């Protein structure tokens, strides 16, 4: 068995190298340069907490960006989850439509989100989009630019992901198959209605998976870049700007690398805080 040690090393090495190259080195670079002044063509100069001071005390856009991101996280971890769980509970009882509904509902989750972005741009196009066409049936001179009007841009953007909760549905359905059948039988014999079974048996048993999907849904709001880049690029103004889009803009449009990496550090800390908070709410660490 002694020479197995060599093999263990050899089997771990490629993953370790890959990890170092794509995660470790960039992470070290990220944290180190978040304390530096670094723009395009300039040297990297240590500047202490300057970037963070700039962000927190002199950056008015960041306040809106943070509040946008926070509202999206909140909506996603409540309404999105509720939709997914409700559908999961409905579909867990096998009917003729179960498979077809599940298959269709998951489609928006498996195609590229860049395509979702374009899809929404098309159906919401002010001239020929489907939505305005339908409204014009009732109000012939209706004209509204959903994405570019500041009064609707935020919620238009929200609608591109809020209702697509197929992942939650699938996880809830998978979890429900693990509930022992005799529990249902006992409940039915005791005269429990369908709603009571959902409320008093299924939901309590789903607590952990709901917590898990809430974490997934909430942290996915810290990753949404594709759809925003494809549609509004964060505009009009900063009304649909979230953290990833702000980082993208700071790093690759304004070329302020030090500042963008300070934002990156902030983003990672937000992610950790959310995971911690949701774990706390759902009490998931006490297994």
């Amino acid at each position: 068995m002694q020479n197995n040690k060599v093999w263990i090393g050899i089997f771990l090495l490629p993953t370790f190298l890959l990890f170092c190259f794509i995660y470790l080195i960039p992470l070290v670079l990220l944290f180190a340069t978040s304390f530096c002044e670094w723009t395009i063509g300039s040297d990297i100069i240590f500047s202490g907490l300057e970037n963070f001071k700039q962000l927190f005390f002199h950056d008015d856009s960041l306040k809106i960006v943070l509040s946008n991101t926070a509202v999206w996280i909140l909506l996603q971890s409540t309404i999105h989850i509720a939709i997914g769980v409700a559908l999961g509970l409905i579909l867990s009882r096998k009917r003729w439509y179960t498979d077809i509904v599940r298959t269709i509902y998951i489609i928006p989750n498996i195609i590229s989100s860049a395509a979702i972005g374009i899809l929404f741009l098309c159906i919401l196009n002010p001239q020929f989009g489907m939505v305005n066409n339908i409204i014009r049936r009732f109000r012939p001179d209706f004209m509204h630019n959903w994405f570019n009007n500041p009064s609707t841009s935020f919620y238009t953007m929200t609608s591109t992901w809020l209702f697509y909760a197929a992942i939650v549905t699938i996880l809830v359905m998978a979890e429900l198959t693990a509930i022992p059948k005799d529990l249902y039988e006992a409940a039915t014999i005791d005269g429990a209605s369908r709603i009571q079974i959902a409320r008093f048996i299924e939901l309590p048993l789903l607590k952990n998976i709901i917590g898990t999907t809430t974490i997934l849904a909430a942290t996915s709001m810290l990753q949404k870049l594709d759809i925003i880049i494809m549609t509004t690029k964060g505009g009009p103004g900063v009304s649909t700007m979230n953290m990833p889009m702000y980082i993208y803009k700071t790093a690759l449009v304004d070329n302020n690398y030090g500042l963008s990496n300070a934002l990156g550090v902030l983003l990672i800390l937000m992610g950790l805080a959310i995971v911690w908070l949701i774990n706390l709410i759902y009490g998931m660490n006490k297994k």
Partner: protein
Amino acid sequence: MKILYIILNVLKFLFIITLVSIAIVPFLWVFINSFKSNSQILSSVAGFPDGLVIKNYWNAFKLAPFVIFYRNSVIVTVISTCLNVFILSMSAYVLARYRFKFNNALVLLFSVGLVIPGAALLQPLYKTLIATSLYNTLTGLIITYAAFGIPITLYIMMSYFKTIPESLEEAAYIDGASFLRTYFQIILPLSKPALATAAVLQFLLCWNEFQFALTLTKDVSKRTLPIALYYFKSAFASDYGAMFSAVILVTIPSIIFFIIMQKQVISGLVAGAIKS
């Protein structure tokens, strides 16, 4: 009680129908419109096109180098998926089977990707790839995607390996099989279902990835399919018919792939999510 039951049932069906419509109607609308001429689209008559016009698809191919985008996407996705599954299953095997000093630390380290939002790494990764002259190469994308799949593949493979009885390997060792042979000839063939699940998830990740494909490449000859849409949006925004067909061209492969591999995708999504 009877009336309440009927109302609940109606509500239930309304709910299902609403969600299904939200999921599929935009797609169907774009699909139907992709066969209409530009003037027909702009005259905003809902309804079906006059006959099947595939001119838009032809235009889409003429306007954007779709053949190159498809080729790049296939190359990146296939190689990255193989690379990811091959090296991750090796690591998952030793991490699941052997107890050694840094075992738990390594599992934790490799899971770091789960809590790092991709956007945080955009600029540092961009600089890292420039420094190693992998920027604007397919190799750069392949390596990047293979790494992004580390946590999920590792988790799927580790939990599968744990279900294989250890007596199997002991028997192989007694028969004189080496470590390498035991792994490749006994363990790996047994793990096909888990390999398929992990590969399918990695495949979708690579095929659909957008933000790093956008930032880590710059020449048209190095770009992948999701970027084609970006290209259309900025360069040919007035040819709507072609843009609609571009959306269909980009999404159809994922949808067909999903319908064929549905079982693996779903079990992968379930396995992939439990890790957190």
